[in-house]
C-alpha cells in the first residue's frame, strides 16, 4: 500500500467513524417511541363508570374514560382519553352489561349511535354495527371491540370496565400494549 492508498483508506474509515458516531445515537433518539415505557404499565386497571341502576336495559349510553395521563413531558390530571358504550342486558343474562369501546375497529374514529335508530354507526367511513356490535356492512374488519366488565358487590352495583385499545384494521382483536 502506498501513501495515497493509505490516505484513501484512512479517509473512508475516519469519515465513516465520524458519521456513525453521530448517526447511531441519532437513530436511537428518533426511535425512542419504540422503547417500552415504564410509565404506561399501570394503565390497564378497572375503572368505575356508572351505577347499574343508571342504565336502562337495551339502551346504549356513552361514558368518558378519564385518566391521569403523561403526554411526553407534561402530566395532565384527569383528562378524557376515550369513551365507552355501556348496554345493560335484561336480568338473568350473562354478562349483565356489555361494554364496547367507542373506537372503531376500522380506522379508530369514534363510533356513535345509528341516527336512524338501532345499533351503532361510525361517521368517518360508514362502518355500521347492530346492537350486539356485529358488522352490518363490509367496512369494519371485525365486530365492535368488547371490554372486560365487572360489577361490584354493592347493593347498587357499580359497573367497572378495563379500558383497552386494539389494533385497527386487524380481523382479530389484538390489544395494543
Amino acid at each position: 500500500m502506498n501513501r495515497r492508498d493509505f490516505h484513501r483508506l484512512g479517509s473512508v474509515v475516519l469519515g465513516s467513524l465520524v458519521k456513525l458516531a453521530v448517526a447511531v445515537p441519532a437513530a436511537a433518539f428518533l426511535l425512542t417511541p419504540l422503547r417500552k415505557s415504564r410509565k404506561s404499565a399501570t394503565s390497564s386497571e378497572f375503572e368505575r363508570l356508572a351505577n347499574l341502576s343508571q342504565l336502562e336495559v337495551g339502551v346504549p349510553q356513552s361514558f368518558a374514560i378519564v385518566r391521569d395521563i403523561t403526554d411526553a413531558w407534561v402530566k395532565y390530571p384527569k383528562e378524557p382519553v376515550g369513551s365507552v358504550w355501556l348496554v345493560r342486558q335484561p336480568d338473568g343474562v350473562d354478562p349483565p352489561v356489555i361494554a364496547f369501546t367507542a373506537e372503531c375497529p376500522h380506522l379508530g374514529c369514534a363510533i356513535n349511535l345509528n341516527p336512524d335508530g338501532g345499533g351503532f354507526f361510525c361517521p368517518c367511513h360508514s362502518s355500521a354495527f347492530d346492537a350486539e356490535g356485529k358488522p352490518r356492512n363490509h367496512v369494519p374488519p371485525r365486530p365492535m371491540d368488547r371490554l372486560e366488565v365487572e360489577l361490584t358487590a354493592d347493593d347498587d352495583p357499580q359497573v367497572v370496565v378495563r379500558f383497552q385499545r386494539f389494533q385497527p384494521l386487524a380481523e382479530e382483536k389484538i390489544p395494543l400494549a
Partner: protein
Amino acid sequence: MRNSIADWLDDRAGLRAATRSVGNETMPGGARWMYVSGAALASIFLIQAFTGLMMMTAYSPSSSTAWGSVYYIEYEMWMGWFIRGLHHFGAQTLMVLLLLHFLQVLWAGAYRAPRELNWWIGLALAGLILAFSHTGYQLPWDQKGYWATKVVTNIMGGAPVAGPYVKTVVVGGSEYGNQTVTRFYGLHVGILPVLMFLGLAAHVALRRRHGFTPPETEYVVKPKGPRQTYWPDQTYRNLLVVTAILGVMIALTVHHGGAPLDAPADPSSADYPARPEWFFRFLFQMLKYFPGRLEWVGSIAIPGALFLTMAALPILDRKLPSRLVHFLACGLIFVLAGGAGFLTLQSFQEDAANPKFQEARAQADLARERALFLASSPKVGVPPEGAGYLMRRDPLTRGRAILEKRCLVCHRFDGVGEKEWSAADLKNFGTKAWVRGLLEKPDSDDYFGKSPECDGMVEWKQASKLTAEELDQVADFVAGFAKIPEDFTVDEWLDQPGVYDHPGNKLFQKDCGTCHVIPGYTEGGLRDAPDLFGWGSPQWMARMIRRPDSPVLYGYLGDDQRMPASPRDELTEGDLKMVIRYLMNDYPLPADEAAPEKTTP
C-alpha cells in the same frame, strides 16, 4: 445494475465530474495540517446542524413548554443526553475553532487581494456563529438561559438611539415570554442556518477559486515529492483532526452526562448568579470596568470598532505599507487575545474567591436538583400550565420561601429564624412530638416562652398532676385532631372508632377541656383558650393564618398581642396551601422514591 443507475444519474446530473474536480484540486506544497482549520470548522458546524435537527423533532418553543421538552430530551429520550451534549459542547468547540481559524487566516495575511471578499464573508460568518450561540443558549428557558438573555438584550437596549427599539423587536415586546422563545427559536433554527449555509457555500467556493497559498517563504520553492491532491491526501488530514475533535466532544459529553439544565426560568428569583458561557467571560468581566451609563462603550462600541477594523484591513492594505498593516493587525489581535485571556481568568478567580457567588450558585444547584426531581417524580411531573409551576407548586420550595418571608419574623423553624423571636418553633407543628414537648415545658422558648400573653399553658403546667405516661396519651390524642376531615362535625368525629375510647380522651376532657372549648364536647370556661377542634389540620391552620382574631381562636387577645392576620391580598390561596403543606411535611422527597433514572451507559 448498480453501475447502470449510477451511470444514468451521472449522465443527467454530472456528479462524478463535479466531485472529481473538487477532489483533484492540487495542494501547493503538498497536503498540510495547516489547511485543516477551515474544514474542521465546517465539519463541526455540520454536526451542530445535524444534532440540532434531531432536537427539533422533540423541542417545543414556548415559555411554558420549552423547559419540559428539554428535560424530556435530556432525561427521558433514548440517547437524548448524548445528542444534546454533543450540540452543547459542539457550540463551544466551534468558538475555539473559529478563533484558531481567524488567527491563522490573519497571520497568513489572507485578507489581501484577491481574497478581500472572502475575508469579509468570513467575518460575517463569525458574526453568525456568535448569533447562533446567543440564541441557542436561551432556548431551554431555564434560569441560566433566561437571565443570560435578559442581560444580553438589555446590553442591546443600552445602545444609543436605536437600542431600545432593537431590544423590543428582538425580545418580541417589553416582557420576556412566549414571543421571546419563538423569535429566538426562529432565528436559531431558520433564519441563521439559511444565512449560514449561503455564506458558507460562498466562502468555500471562493476558497476553491483562490486555492491554497503555501507560507510565503515557500512561494518560490518547487513542491517536492509526489503531487498531492485534496482527495485523499488533505481529506485524510482533515478527517483525522475532525475525528480527534469529535472524540473530545464525546468525552466531554460522557464525562458530564449530557448538557446542563438549570431550574425552570423564574423571573421572581432574586439571587440567581447569571454568568455567560466561558468564551464570553472576558466581555462580562470588562463590563465591570464601565459605569452603567457607558455600558454600551464596552459591550458594543469596542467590539464593534474591532470588527470594523478587521473589515477595513483589505482597504488599509492598499493605502498603507502592506507589511506594516499586517504587523499592526496581528499585534492588535494578539494583545487583545491576551487581554481577553487575562479578563477571563480574572473573572473566574473573582467568582472562586467570592463566597456570595458560591452560596448563590449552591442555591441555584439545589433548585436545579429539586426541579429535575419533581419533573421525574411520578407523583408530580411537569404540570400542563408549564414548567414554571413545577417550583411554584412545590411546598418545599414555595412553602418554605413564604414561611421564611412572612412567618419567621416572629416564629422559628427548626431553630432557624430571627435573633429576637417572639413565637413558637413551627417545626413538626401538629405532630405528637410537638404536643408532647409543649405539655412537658410550655414556657420553653420553642413554645410559649417568648409570648408571655399566652401564659395559660404555663399556668396549667404548674397545677397539673398528669404523669409522663398520661401526657403521652394526651399528646397522642391531640395529634389525632390533625386528621379530622374538613367537613366533619364534632359528633361525627366522636363517632369514629378509636376516638371516644382513646385513653387520652378522658384526660383531655378533664385537664384541657376546662379552658379549651370544643362545642358539643368540652365546656371550657376556666380561662380563654382557642378551640382545638381539627388542630393541626389544613383547615385549622388556614383559619389560624387568615383569621387569628377569630372568636374560636385568639379573639380574646388584644390586637397588638396576637399574631397578625394574612388576608387574601397579602397571601394568595395557593401560597397559603403551600405554607400549610410545608408545615405538614407534605411534599415528595427523592429518598421516598427511586432516584430519577438517567439513560447514561
